[in-house]
């Protein structure tokens, strides 16, 4: 079974600084997809960024980028120039073309002034 591990229950970053959230996963598949979701207090899960495993290039979305290390089964999220609105729970997730999304337990990110 696929598992997703987020080893940092909480992280804190100062406004305008950079923070990296860690995620590792376990799978025997070679073709899969990885995601980072943000969950603010409104509870709605918002897709931040996605990465196809067959792509070597790391995905980027504005201030958000990933470091995808396929051999190490690692998928970290880097947030640059952190803003107060980035404060939320962040979930790493995995799926294959035929499976549903499997989530990690989340990292709560605090952004301080």
């Amino acid at each position, binding site marked *: 079974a696929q598992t997703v591990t*987020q080893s940092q229950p909480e992280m804190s970053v100062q406004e305008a600084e950079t923070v990296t959230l860690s995620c590792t996963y376990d799978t025997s598949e070679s073709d899969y997809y990885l995601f980072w979701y943000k969950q603010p207090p409104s509870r*709605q899960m918002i*897709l931040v960024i996605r990465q196809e495993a067959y792509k070597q290039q790391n995905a980027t979305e504005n201030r958000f980028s990933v470091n995808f290390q396929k051999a190490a089964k690692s998928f970290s999220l880097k947030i640059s120039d952190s803003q107060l609105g980035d404060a939320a729970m962040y979930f790493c997730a995995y*799926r294959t*073309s*035929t499976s549903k*999304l499997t989530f990690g*337990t989340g990292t709560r990110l605090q952004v301080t002034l």
Partner: protein
Amino acid sequence: GAGVSQSPSNKVTEKGKDVELRCDPISGHTALYWYRQSLGQGLEFLIYFQGNSAPDKSGLPSDRFSAERTGGSVSTLTIQRTQQEDSAVYLCASSLDSGANYGYTFGSGTRLTVV
């Protein structure tokens, strides 16, 4: 609709009562997913619909939980004889199709409290 709509937003029920949670997916989305999020936990998969059928209901925790989807649209998750451990946020998501090319759009969830 413009997004995934879930109702009610919050529900408090007495132990032993039945509850129904509703999910209205984005129009045209054929895949629909239910997840449960307990306090401080990640999202636990419950059931997945493709159209009106449920190819994967492996995450339903007990036979007190059931779900249906009608007209390829609205889905209802029913919990019978609720227990305190059923207290959680129940999230629904829909997707244009079940393939991984398609992202999930989530609703804002129903917070269920069993007292």
